[in-house]
């Protein structure tokens, strides 16, 4: 990072020496300087992730509108939104405000300054529709993890089922379809029998 900064200093000094002879060139140099400055800023951008829980009592449209307000709020502060993860309605591990479920949203964004985060966190804190929130700065591994998750390289961890040996799995697969038709046959088979039997039984009684 420091290396890039020093390079940039050298480069800007070079630009000034090279272009300062006339006014026209100077403005041109300034433009180039601004352009490179923006490039550098983009390089310095940190990626963050804000996860929040929305009150499930609200209607579906209201939930979506609350999520979109925070997206627009972040955009207005000069952040670029990378991805919005709608995790949907989930059961909470413990009740929050006498509610046992909540709608989870996760907005991933990149920002150059921390000011945007302070403002969004204040807004989230004031909002009654938000039950909980958490902002996290992602390191480079986190950014990569989220990208891989989106592209489907990594899927959510699933608990391993007890390992079945191949022959057991085969027998289980063979056994599974077999019992299914059997009860159907049984249901069909006994049904006509009583119809036939009862009249006969009646006849015998007579």
């Amino acid at each position, binding site marked *: 990072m420091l290396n890039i900064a020093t390079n940039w200093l050298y480069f800007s000094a070079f630009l000034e020496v090279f272009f300062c002879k006339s006014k026209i060139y100077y403005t041109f140099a300034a433009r180039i300087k601004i352009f490179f400055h923006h490039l550098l800023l983009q390089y310095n951008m940190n990626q963050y992730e804000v996860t929040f829980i929305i009150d499930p009592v609200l209607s579906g449209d209201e939930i979506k509108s609350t999520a979109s307000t925070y997206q627009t709020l972040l955009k207005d502060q000069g952040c670029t939104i990378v991805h919005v993860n709608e995790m949907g309605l989930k059961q909470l591990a413990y009740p929050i405000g006498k509610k046992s479920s909540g709608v*989870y949203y996760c907005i991933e964004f990149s920002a150059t300054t921390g000011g945007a985060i302070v403002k969004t966190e204040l807004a989230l804190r004031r909002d009654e529709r938000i039950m909980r929130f958490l902002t996290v700065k992602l390191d480079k*591994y986190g950014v990569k993890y989220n990208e891989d998750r989106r592209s489907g390289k990594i899927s959510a*961890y699933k608990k391993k089922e007890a390992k079945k040996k191949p022959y057991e799995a085969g027998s289980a697969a063979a056994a599974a379809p077999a019992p299914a038709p059997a009860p159907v046959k049984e249901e069909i088979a006994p049904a006509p029998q009583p119809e036939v039997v009862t009249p006969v039984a009646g006849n015998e009684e007579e």
Partner: protein
Amino acid sequence: MASRDDIKFLSNPTIGQQRKKYCRFKKYGIKYIDYKDSEFLLQFITEQGKLLPRRITGNSLKYQKLVAVAVKRSRHLAILPYVADLLK
């Protein structure tokens, strides 16, 4: 001559041996621990929702610290409980 495979033991020789513990993050190259993945984090907590010690999970110090942070984050977001009974 009898080869190594022909020797039969009276009891299973692997029974008494202790399996070597290892850090799964180092072994499988996991660099980031997601606090939203409750299923994954359940491996590192007890049935009461307490963090399991390194002595049992075999995590290296670096990743044990990251696991602790991830579990605490997920507790705040009610993905994992602070206190629980029969969690697993």
